[in-house]
């Protein structure tokens, strides 16, 4: 078996509060193989985005790495010096964000922002780099790239800006693309195009993807394996098809049941949606034991006191629930 491209082991992310330190993320472990698309799903505040930032070495105060290992291609990268991390970012690992307008430099033409990647990471001259930027824009299917390279971000639509972000991220052929809610700010028809584009380009170049989203359906369509996070922990991880066919954690089950699905009303008539009761806990008030216990329909005493260990599921899956099986 070939070693994984990215291995995250027992990751803990600390959040410094008023004299107290909270664990915003704890015990998070996952692996991504070369060229594999891996999805990390959860609601806002569950820790999925900061997990991605920690892989990029971009955690900033009040957040910091509290423990664990991040191994990229055999090399531990959790405490490499900032200068070396900068060299890795863009070259080996790259990231695209939810809102491309705030991620792009508003004062620089998009062609220059792409070309910069070739200059910084590959030592290209500016004129060669600009030619390659035009090619990169063509690859992400921006129409008339020869004109668009001179455009500023505000002259482009949201979908086109996200294409520029993808061109920048994939410019140096990274091994891993981290995509944090890359389509949440876009319209649904544009979302479908962008997802297809990411999937297609990454498959062609053999780039692995860490896809972060709150949309389980979106992630499951694109990724081979999916991990579900709740309140700072991974509660379930499975092959994408299996997570819908056999969700094993009550939270995953609840998420799948609670959303109205297209075609469901035609098949079964209008059923009352099954609700997940209660609210998402805040980081200052994570419950003891299993953090889903106050909202769980299957809760028993042990759930309120003991953190559930991981139980193996078929095909390298796992679930953290006292009542599994």
């Amino acid at each position: 078996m070939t070693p994984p491209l990215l291995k995250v082991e027992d990751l803990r992310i600390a959040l410094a509060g008023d004299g107290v330190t909270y664990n915003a993320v704890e015990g998070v472990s996952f692996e991504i193989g070369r060229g594999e698309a891996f999805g990390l799903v959860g609601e806002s505040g569950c820790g999925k985005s900061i997990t991605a930032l920690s892989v990029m070495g971009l955690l900033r105060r009040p957040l910091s790495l509290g423990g664990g290992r991040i191994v990229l291609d055999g090399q531990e990268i959790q405490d490499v010096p900032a200068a070396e991390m900068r060299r890795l970012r863009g070259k080996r690992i790259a990231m695209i964000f939810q809102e491309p307008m705030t991620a792009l430099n508003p004062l620089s033409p998009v062609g220059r922002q792409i070309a910069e990647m070739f200059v910084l990471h590959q030592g290209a001259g500016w004129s060669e780099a600009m030619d390659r930027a035009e090619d990169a824009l063509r690859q992400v299917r921006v129409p008339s790239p020869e004109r668009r390279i001179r455009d500023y971000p505000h002259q482009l639509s949201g979908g086109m800006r996200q294409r520029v972000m993808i061109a920048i991220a994939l410019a140096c052929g990274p091994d891993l693309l981290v995509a944090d809610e890359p389509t949440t700010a876009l319209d649904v028809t544009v979302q479908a195009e962008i997802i297809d584009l990411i999937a297609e380009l990454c498959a062609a170049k053999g780039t692995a993807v860490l896809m972060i989203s709150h949309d389980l359906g979106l992630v499951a369509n694109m990724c081979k394996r999916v991990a579900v996070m709740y309140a700072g922990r991974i509660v379930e991880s499975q092959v994408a098809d299996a997570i819908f066919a056999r969700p094993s954690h009550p939270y995953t089950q609840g998420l799948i049941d609670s959303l109205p699905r297209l075609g469901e009303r035609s098949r079964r008539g209008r059923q009352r949606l099954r609700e997940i009761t209660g609210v998402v806990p805040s980081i200052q008030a994570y419950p003891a034991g299993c953090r889903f216990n106050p909202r769980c329909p299957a809760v028993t005493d042990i759930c309120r006191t003991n953190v559930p260990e991981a139980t193996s599921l078929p095909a390298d899956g796992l679930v953290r629930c006292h009542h599994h099986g």
Partner: protein
Amino acid sequence: MVKPLLVLDDLAVHFKVGSMLAGGVKTLKAVDGVTLDVKPGECLGLVGESGCGKSTLALAIMGLLLPTHGRIHVGGQRISGDTPPDRMEMARTVQMVFQDPYASLNPRQTVRRTLADPLRLHGVKDKAEVESRVIDMMAKVGLRPEHADRYPHEFSGGQRQRIGIARALILKPRLVICDEPVSALDVSIRAQIINLLLELKDEMDLAYIMISHDLGVVEHVSDRVAVMYLGRIVEQGGWQEIFENPRHPYTRALIAAIPDPFHRAAASVARAKAKGEIPSALNPPPGCHFNPRCPLKADLCTVEAPVLEGVAPGHLAACHFRDRII
């Protein structure tokens, strides 16, 4: 035949943008010739991407924007460019639930004040009656009496949306415009709010206009659905017709764009994706506005705008190829 609660008759809302000094004045046709009705107790789903004119349409129905031409009949009122609405009467007929429960509540007002003020403004003088109606409304949306003296920041997103719903319903309106009521909420909270809205609809005999980009939600709650694109309705019909037999390529594209992990590539619409993005409403393409993105585009489409015509009873589509089944 039931008399409709809301009738939009060739409604248009245009804006003048730009200035004489900088490039000239242009007309933005945010809503351009919309004819629709909503019957009492009915839920109309309104679907379309950002910039299609949904929110402008909502504001016009609320009486907050005057029509450029065409008319709105809502309840007993007739609104047109030169007959502005009676705001007080409007407020008793039409109310709105907003997308963002963090931005749409006054942070300096308690729940009690937020709910009691409309009652007082509308002439409920008796203190005991105000109090009982406030507590009663809070119970209906699932808030406890002790919540009355709290401020919005003390509530979670889902609870805030309950307050927003209570505020919209306290005057017992007949029509409620729900503008993306769950899209700002945590995924695990959305079902609670959707269930609540459906319960209240039956209990208080409300009509809804449900604006959402989430087609799963629209299919779940709507009796009829209207699909909007660049200021025009391109398709409307019963929910089942729209979702099972969509006739406009844009409707098909919207449905095809939804990732469906349960029935991958099962639907006949699966390959009907749209190309590109919604053009600017300032400079819409000639003919059918959807033609640059349309997989069925023919020469006719760039010349002549298709009209909204029937394909089945109650099912209308504005496409030259509405009868072509893919």
